[in-house]
């Protein structure tokens, strides 16, 4: 889904760094992220993935209410996580611009 996006590796690196700063999900390296297609393969549970996204939202200055439940199904996949992080960045940048 996201393999062809030029910024995919940059996002995987960003996600690996962010995961490393969160105590409730196991640390994963960029190589593991590149190799995996499912977040479950990285030891990240479905609730853990939601918690990760919630933390990222807060780190970008957004609020819990910006967490869209429609994102939840895509968090099973690494590329879905990338897409959600990208969308959060877009939302955060838009909020700053406003």
């Amino acid at each position, binding site marked *: 889904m996201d393999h062809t996006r030029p910024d995919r590796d940059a996002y995987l690196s960003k996600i690996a760094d962010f995961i490393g700063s969160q105590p409730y999900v196991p640390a994963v390296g960029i190589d593991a992220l590149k190799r995996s297609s499912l977040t479950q393969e990285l030891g990240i549970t479905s609730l853990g993935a939601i918690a990760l996204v*919630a933390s990222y939202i807060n780190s970008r200055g957004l609020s819990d209410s910006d967490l869209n*439940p429609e994102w939840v199904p895509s968090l099973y996949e690494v590329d879905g996580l990338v897409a959600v992080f990208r969308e959060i960045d877009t939302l955060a940048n838009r909020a700053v611009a406003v």
Partner: protein
Amino acid sequence: MSNSIDQHALTPAQIESFKENGFLGPFTLYSPQEAIKRWNQAKVEMVLSKNKPHDSKILNYDRHLDCNTLSEHISRPEIVGKLRSLMGPDIMCWKTNIFPKYPGDEGTGWHQVETFRAGQTGTETRPALKYTEQTAHITSEITVWTAFTPARREHGCMTFIPGTHKKWYYDETRPLKSAIEAKRHDFFGYDYSELKLDDRWDPDSQESFKMEMEPGQFVMFLAKCIHGSMPNVSDQMRIGYASRYISPMVKVYDGVDHLAQYGEKINLDYFGCVMVSGQDTRGLNRMHTASLNGYAFNAWD
């Protein structure tokens, strides 16, 4: 409000079927799309909750107390209307559990309960429920199990042995001692077949019913009706949400102040029953009229 709930009452034939078999369903509560949407919402609420009933990440009990989607679910008229046909007008929800079954997970072994051991499994034998008097209705305890994902045979659907609620085949008061070896008897890490009253009796030789359900459908059953589940041989996780109901004359967690299971222990300070229909005429239990978030629970007149 009674009119809108009365339309969900069971028919006489359905009531007879429940009395005969000990379970009834499936009934449709949500469309598959709606069910999946609601579960996604519930998961977000679970993660973001500032008022969790307990800190356990393993014991997923009672999230109806802090997730609005689940707080609303337990008193849906489609559920409560049917419960009233079997339990009379006064009904409370005492517990909820989430039952995930991951791809590759084994089935849950046959089991039969009525008083529910406080810790659900293990060496704990204290009953969670005490029935203080006979009910004038068909039953004073029912579990409603709602599928929030597909729960067909391959995903690990629930299974029942019809009519087994009429007799005890297991002794639920004995402790569970052994860690599971025979996977087909697996009851959350313990071998429930140890509790059989007659070693020669083989539940697998009985005719069983596979309760296949789509997301948004539910089944109602007596915990005393022997039940279990199939293994999940699909590549999709199965999610069931059990909401458990009793009459107000049942006392919950009498003398029990914590639950211990899977090496975790949770304090029951948060605990309280929730009226979903009628009135608490006995006053035996701690009650919540609102969730820990302040969501006002709905009790049908």
